[in-house]
């Protein structure tokens, strides 16, 4: 094991900064608990006392490792990386518990002040009066605040993506209205990704449930372009290839006109004006006739 060489005393490394890097940090974890208790404990209920104590010990050991590393000013060092990863996961954890990113950012700032105070008390060196020490620690803690916000943004993006997927799934409810008869009301626009979702769900359902007919209701489609009509035809073809009947219902006059002007030929596809007519057609093909009791 090689003995750690202290960084050379360059103009960048003032006397106090060198002293900070050479400092044998004692147990200052208790002093670092105050910001944790203030921001995560008490009424916020984000952490209990044991967790705050563990957090302070972990932070202390990671900061000590950074100060004792071969070059504490190296922004690519594994020690600084470990510290930023720790704050990133702390940020995620707090958000999952209902905390706000601002709380974690303020905790990180308060931790910086608590650390300087604790180091001063531990070593009797007035680090707070050294510009280079303050600059160095501000640089490190700015990195940590960046990691906190980065984690927050990632979490937000993930949540938005999950909501988007959920919305898309809910926008295409496939319902088995009768044994072997599925209804698929299409509302809004059919873009490529939504078509893929609809086809994936619909074709799997056809294979799984041995579906006889699929009634696709377009009552909720208010406008159609060539791409949407192309996707619609793709769904119909795929349903037919699986061996099911595809029935399109609820084509509004403006949609019919648009289909004609787009040169879409629906002669191979069964169409009915309303969803109820489409269901009747599906039932008839299965040999089911629905009559009023009086008849």
């Amino acid at each position, binding site marked *: 094991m090689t003995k750690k060489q202290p960084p050379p005393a360059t103009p960048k490394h003032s006397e106090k900064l060198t002293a900070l890097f050479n400092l044998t940090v004692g147990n200052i974890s208790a002093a670092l608990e105050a910001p944790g208790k203030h921001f995560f404990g008490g009424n916020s209920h984000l952490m209990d006392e044991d967790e705050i104590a563990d957090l302070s010990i972990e932070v202390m050991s990671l900061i000590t490792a950074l100060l004792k590393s071969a070059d504490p000013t190296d922004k690519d060092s594994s020690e600084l990386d470990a510290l930023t990863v720790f704050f990133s996961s702390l940020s995620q954890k707090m958000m999952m518990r209902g905390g706000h990113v601002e709380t974690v950012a303020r905790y990180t700032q308060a931790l910086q002040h608590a650390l300087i105070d604790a180091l001063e008390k531990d070593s009797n060196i007035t680090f707070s009066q050294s510009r280079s020490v303050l600059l160095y620690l501000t640089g490190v803690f700015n990195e940590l605040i960046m990691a906190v916000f980065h984690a927050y943004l990632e979490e937000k993006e993930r949540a938005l993506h999950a909501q988007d997927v959920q919305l898309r799934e809910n926008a295409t409810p496939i319902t088995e209205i009768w044994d072997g008869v599925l209804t698929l009301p299409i509302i809004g626009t059919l873009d490529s990704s939504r078509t893929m979702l609809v086809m*994936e769900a619909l*074709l799997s359902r056809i*294979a799984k449930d041995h579906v*006889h007919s699929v009634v696709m209701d377009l009552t909720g489609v208010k406008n159609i372009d060539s791409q949407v009509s192309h996707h619609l035809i793709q769904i119909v*073809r*795929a349903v037919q290839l*699986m*061996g099911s009947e595809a029935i399109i219902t609820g084509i509004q006059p403006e949609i019919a006109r648009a289909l004609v002007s787009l040169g879409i030929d629906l002669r191979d596809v069964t169409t009915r004006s309303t969803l109820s007519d489409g269901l009747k057609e599906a039932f008839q*093909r299965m040999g089911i006739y629905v009559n009023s009791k009086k008849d």
Partner: protein
Amino acid sequence: MQSNGLRLTQIGSSDFLLEPSRSLDIQNQGALLELIISKLQELRGKRLYYDLSEQVLIDPVYYAWLNTLAVALYTINVTTVCIHMQPTAAYALAQNMLVAPKFETAIDIAAWRKSS
């Protein structure tokens, strides 16, 4: 009958089930068609169920083979019904299909018999 990567089984008086395996070489279409047609003619077949359950993906070449087979069998009054098409195959085929298929499709044999 079992040869050249396909198995042909009689499942009714005039119904046949063709189960191609992954080793089926569709490059040799002429020989395959002759083999299938001669067997169906010999046993007076009227309907051929082509099982696609092993075919996870149907590319344009395989699609062309299915159409060629259906057209050839039509000349001897045999209807080709493709069954058990996989969702992945239907999805991919629907994206690339330029002409309507020459064959019929059904979920399975029971569904075809029920609907016809």
